[in-house]
């Protein structure tokens, strides 16, 4: 009887550990995915803001941001690179992350103002 009770307790313990490990693994995967989405949304929000600022600055010729001859933002110094290019009257601003992957592209009017 004593042996049966101990065996039962041990079986329950092992089963619980297994179930807990499975559920914890699933939860950790979900949290990792959530963290990845949070980083992605944060990067997109930053990229949109920088692209908008870069586009307006480049378009109006104001000096709060500076660009080199190739249209790259030279004083960004952070996690992103803004690349501006003009084709006719269209101004395209591309935001790249530190790995060179494009996060966001914004096309604005780059011709003469109203």
């Amino acid at each position: 009887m004593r042996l049966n009770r101990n065996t039962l307790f041990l079986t329950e313990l092992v089963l619980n550990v297994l179930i807990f490990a499975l559920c914890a693994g699933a939860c950790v995967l979900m949290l990792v995915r959530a963290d990845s989405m949070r980083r992605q949304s944060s990067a997109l929000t930053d990229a949109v803001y920088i692209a908008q600022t870069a586009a307006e600055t480049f378009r109006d010729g104001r000096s709060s941001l500076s660009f080199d001859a190739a249209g790259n933002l030279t004083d960004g110094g952070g996690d992103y690179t803004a690349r501006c290019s003009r084709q006719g009257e269209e101004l395209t601003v591309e935001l790249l992350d530190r790995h060179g992957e494009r996060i966001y592209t914004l096309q604005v009017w780059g011709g003469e103002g109203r």
Partner: protein
Amino acid sequence: MKKSDGALGVGVITISTVLLVLCLSVMAMLAFSSARAELHLAQANAENISAYYAADMQAHRLYADFAAASEESLRAEISISDRQSLCLWLEREDGQVRVRAWNTVTREAEAPTGPELWDGNLSEFGGQKP
């Protein structure tokens, strides 16, 4: 004296594990749904800004065409999204183009259509309004 069976009886660990797993799952699901909503919001914002600048570009083209032509007035509404549009109103005064309006307008949401309610008028039933 009776000997104790142990601090934990059979089933206590299972109950604790179930509670723990439940708490973990709820926390993970809340974090996931919050992150997903945040990502959707960021994407919607990015799309909205792209759409605004596309409409702005179209408005600039209309402005350039209007400046080159000889029409007296131009009114246009350029769609940005389902609920927003860019309103453009240009006029020519003494040969100069004058911008009367260049702003975004939000369309009002359609009134909800529901069952027709009684307005308190009894005349249609042959009586008088109290």
